[in-house]
């Protein structure tokens, strides 16, 4: 029982992080339409609120949060990432979110210290 608890405190838990990110995106963008003037503000807000929620989890990790917002316009978009890390302790999680006019892709990478 003790071992399970301590391993959960030091591993990258994808579900927990997915929830944190979805809340950050919903509360920032919600049902808004794509507006060029607001995008910078939305991006900063999503990324900063995600990062502060993640650090509040208190786990021994370094985090990188990246966010992409794309207008729904028919353009093709592809993203990929590749990581050189410690497979047993590090992890990543990507959340794809959309509303009528916007796609938003947020990726979180957690690397243990």
């Amino acid at each position, binding site marked *: 029982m003790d071992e399970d608890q301590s391993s959960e405190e030091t591993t990258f838990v994808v579900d927990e992080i997915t929830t944190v990110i979805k809340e950050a995106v919903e509360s920032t963008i919600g049902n808004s339409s794509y507006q060029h003037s607001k995008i910078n503000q939305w*991006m900063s807000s999503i990324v900063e609120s995600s990062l502060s929620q993640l650090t509040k989890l208190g786990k021994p990790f370094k985090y990188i949060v990246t*966010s992409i917002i794309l207008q*729904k316009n028919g353009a093709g978009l*592809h*993203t990929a990432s590749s990581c050189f890390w410690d497979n047993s302790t590090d992890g990543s999680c990507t959340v794809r979110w959309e509303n009528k006019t916007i796609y938003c892709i947020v990726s979180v990478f957690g690397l243990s210290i």
Partner: protein
Amino acid sequence: MDDDQSAEETAFVVEEVSSIVKESLEAVIGRNPYEHKRVNQWMSSVVEQCLGQLSKLGKPFKYIVTCIIMQKNGAGLQSASSCFWDNTTDGSCTVRWENKHLYCIVSVFGLAI
């Protein structure tokens, strides 16, 4: 002199990483137009080639390489990232590249072990 050399061997050198990324992009995509079928293959090649070159540098770093390819179609795209790490040892580098038909953004994050 010794201090400078050892500091450079263990620091994240932005120019070095930036030139590795640009060479990969030129070699893999070059002047090709956006082709939906080929993009996945290009993405994998770019990301794997960058990671291969980076690990050959032999520095004590974990790396994350992310790549975005977008068709030039008039859509708005914003991308942001925020990092919770050790400011003295870790670093990142983002390369924006384009040809007539597509935009490509590659980000490399290096975190000291």
